[in-house]
């Protein structure tokens, strides 16, 4: 049969199966191959909270979505065009995210009576007509995988573990991808187990050949390379980027990096990644709890390290007293909160933006802390570096907010030139003459960093209120008032040292969509769509939340309406309303999921009130 090829600008595929089906690896391979072929892309894994939930259940479904294209890609995609479902449960869970007329490829072996029952189907969706608005391709992947490997004498367990590569092979055929990258990966991964190299390669090719030779698939698609900025790229998740950004900051500050951390979803990867970098003299301390994570970091900071603690919302709650201590003793410290669904334990594997007010105000007393937020997975690198710069220059704890969506999501990253990264080193105090622990720099109001081991600078710091300059314990009313104001002003002055806010789109108009953090790609996509329709809409994305950019107020006043979408009940909106007295409108959804750009677009239309 003659096969047609159609060219597409962008495609979203979701691989879904049981948590043991290897869907993350499958998605990861498709991602790396597509990146190497020059597509722009964005990905999002969707893990179950359970490590190995019972096989075949809906709560054991693991998914991986990739959005790739020949144009600029800013989100992992609202809905998918193609759904690969390895069993009934994965179809049930993911069907809602499939476009009408979308493609479904199912492994029919995953739709036996037991699977259907576990998924809660009373009759097979493959037979009852309920999938009629989609293009369904039924393939017995399990059987075909077994056939491909029948002469290899492998255990059934091993055979079962390769069937994801059959699906991957079919998708490689369908989207005209090369098999080379994945074969190379398999060859390296199973260097010492040649039978696994053979098995995986065979199954991958079998999937490709099956799609090529049978009549099941009549159409294949081509997605051309995207016009990306020239340079060397790698694919990177937000958590990887955060880890690399901290190492880069330590190198550029000429300081050892110390991480005190306690494992917590979805932040643990930062601890894991940094513990690999021993040959950078990075010291990672897996503490007994969140509090020891941050207090050990404060101890290391006292000793002259670039100190970091990484966690998620519940961990920040536990660390809040210690953040206050770092505010009081004025030592540099970076606190990374990879936000997840809350409150309490909440939704550990899902994303949310509901810790902004916690970061801003979640401590006892007047306890000002700079708060910054990364906008995309690769931006985590820049913001980790920036958090370190601010912490060192202003001798203050800095909170960096990312989230589960950024932390686990990935995108191609234009690898920066090391020589272009700024030097952020600050000298330690050495001169013992006239040293006082709380003497301040006139411009930054920062105190000097004097570390143990330095002769003649012996001094004591602590959490009690201290006298200006000397740092001696002091309870006098006027002194406390002055110190509270000094600490606040020190943080406010950072506004002189951060980039001004920029508007994507016109500087004036009907609607300004203001966002922060991980919603960047979605808001950008939505605003661009509306602008193409001729709507007067612009986008402003805040990466600096405390202090805010100095020009923010005047920008806000240039628009008739300010729309603030957030994955919370309205936190940034409270801050902006209070500070600028703007009658902003919120768009708030708290489902543990990223916004879809269509939701933003609908809200923009609503705000514009049908204005064409």
């Amino acid at each position: 049969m003659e096969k047609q090829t159609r060219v597409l600008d962008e495609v979203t595929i979701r691989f879904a199966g049981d948590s043991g089906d290897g869907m993350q690896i499958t998605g990861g391979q498709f991602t790396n191959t597509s990146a190497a072929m020059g597509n722009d892309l964005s990905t999002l894994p969707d893990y179950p909270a359970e490590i190995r939930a019972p096989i075949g259940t809906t709560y054991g479904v693991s998914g991986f979505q990739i959005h790739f294209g020949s144009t600029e890609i800013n989100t992992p995609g609202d809905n998918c065009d193609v759904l690969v479902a390895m069993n009934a449960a994965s179809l049930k869970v993911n069907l809602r995210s499939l476009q009408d007329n979308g493609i479904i490829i199912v492994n029919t072996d995953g739709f036996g009576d037991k699977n259907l029952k576990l998924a809660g189907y009373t009759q097979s969706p493959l037979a009852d007509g309920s999938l009629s608005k989609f293009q369904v391709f039924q393939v017995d992947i399990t059987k075909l995988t077994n056939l491909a490997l029948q002469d290899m004498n492998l255990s059934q367990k091993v055979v079962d573990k390769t069937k994801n590569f059959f699906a991957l092979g079919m998708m490689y055929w369908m989207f005209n991808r090369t098999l080379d990258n994945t074969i190379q990966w398999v060859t390296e991964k199973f260097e010492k187990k040649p039978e696994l190299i053979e098995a995986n390669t065979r199954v991958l090719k079998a999937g490709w050949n099956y799609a090529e030779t049978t009549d099941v698939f009549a159409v294949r698609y081509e997605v051309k390379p995207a016009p990306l900025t020239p340079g060397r790229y790698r694919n990177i998740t937000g958590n990887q980027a955060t880890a690399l950004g901290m190492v880069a900051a330590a190198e550029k500050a000429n300081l050892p990096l110390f991480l005190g951390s306690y494992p917590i979803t979805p932040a643990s990867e930062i601890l894991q990644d940094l513990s690999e970098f021993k040959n950078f003299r990075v010291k990672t301390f897996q503490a007994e709890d969140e509090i020891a994570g941050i207090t050990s970091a404060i101890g290391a900071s006292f000793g002259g390290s670039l100190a970091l603690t990484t966690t998620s919302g519940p961990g920040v709650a536990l660390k809040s007293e210690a953040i206050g201590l770092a505010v009081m003793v004025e030592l540099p410290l970076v606190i990374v909160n990879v936000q997840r669904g809350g409150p309490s334990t909440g939704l550990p594997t899902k994303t949310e933006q509901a810790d902004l007010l916690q970061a801003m105000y979640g401590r006892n007393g007047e306890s000002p802390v700079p708060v910054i937020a990364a906008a995309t997975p690769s931006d985590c690198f820049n913001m980790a570096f920036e958090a370190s710069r601010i912490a060192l220059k202003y001798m203050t704890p800095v909170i960096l907010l990312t989230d589960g969506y950024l932390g686990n999501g990935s995108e191609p990253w234009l690898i920066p030139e090391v020589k272009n990264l700024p030097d952020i080193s600050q000298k330690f105090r050495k001169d013992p003459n006239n040293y006082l622990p709380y003497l301040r720099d006139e411009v930054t109001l920062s105190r000097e960093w004097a570390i143990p081991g330095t002769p003649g600078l012996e001094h004591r710091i602590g959490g009690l209120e201290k006298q200006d300059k000397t740092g001696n314990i002091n309870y006098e009313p006027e002194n406390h008032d002055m110190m509270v104001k000094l600490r606040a002003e020190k943080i406010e002055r950072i506004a002189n040292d951060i980039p001004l806010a920029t508007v994507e789109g016109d500087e004036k108009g009907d609607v300004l969509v203001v966002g922060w953090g991980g919603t960047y790609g979605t808001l950008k996509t939505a605003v661009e769509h509306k602008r193409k329709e001729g709507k007067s809409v612009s986008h402003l994305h805040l990466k600096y939340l405390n202090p805010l950019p100095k020009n923010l107020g005047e920008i806000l006043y240039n628009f008739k309406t300010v729309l603030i979408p957030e994955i919370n009940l309205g936190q940034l909106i409270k801050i902006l309303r209070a500070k600028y007295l703007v009658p902003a409108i919120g768009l708030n959804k708290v489902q543990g999921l990223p916004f879809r750009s269509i939701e933003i677009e609908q809200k923009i239309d609503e705000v514009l009130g049908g204005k064409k």
Partner: protein
Amino acid sequence: MSILIEEVVSKEAVSTVKYTAKDFSSDQDVRWCPGCGDYSVLAQVQRVMPDLNVPKEKVVFVSGIGCSSRFPYYMNTYGFHGIHGRATAIATGLKIARPDLSVWIATGDGDGLSIGGNHMIHLLRRNVDVNILLFNNQIYGLTKGQYSPTSEVGKITKSTPFGSVDMPFNPAALALGSSGTFVSRSLDRDPKHMQSIIKRAAEHKGTSFVEIYQNCNVFNDGAFFQFTEKETKSDSVVFLEHGKPLIFGKENDKGIKLDGFSPVVVSLKDGSHSANDLLVHNEKDSTLAFILANMTYNHDLPRPLGIFLAIDRPCYEDEMEKQIDSAISKRGRGTLEKLLNNGDTWVIQ
């Protein structure tokens, strides 16, 4: 250490200056209540410091919250007055980051065993090379008189007007149970003993745990008088000395021997036993250390004081340095260029 750190800190591990106790006294007024046992601890530490020959700038005292945690302010060294219960964790981070420092922790029974109990046991098991001075006064002093995790059962305090009902911690047994490598006990009213223990603690490589019975003359006066006052002391206390039999009593007329695994008091006067029958202390024997520590709170037995255990085990921070050195020797000192360009990369022309 980075170049920046090396630029400012002194290289020497042994002091070239001969210090006196006064060199370790800061310019701050000591604000403990008159008559508090804390004064004695401060005095003994300041007296021992010159003998240790550690450059003053290399010494750091870290504390949490409580009366004892004011300690760093009175030492003319580096000091960090932290938050409640976390001195152990702050000190851990500091020592891991800076193994060249001599790190001391001043804590109390509330700070170290109640709110900070978790960090305490983990510090001990990791064997980070720091020295813990645990001021045990069996009461909450700074908050003005509530019972503590070492208060005796039935203790009447402001928060237990009908008597406390919970079993107290035995700090030495807790430290041993946490795999501590140096576990000891001393008292505020025996300066010579305390000095000798503090000195041994400082010399020990690994976490040194020193419990110090400390009188709170305002909220728990006399809690340890049985062990500190002339009339009762010699019959109520047995000093543990390595290689020596456990003998006590006004006229050295009593001893401890083992009956199975249980220590019992025997008379050396009535002819039934001689010193040869007695338990001989061995501070390298961790099983014996448990038996001795469990004599605490047994009213039929004297209270053991001294060093229960002093054994060697690798320190956390040294093992970490080893891993780092080994990674560098295998892979070479990392370069940022290589790190950022690691893994699957591709070039867009």
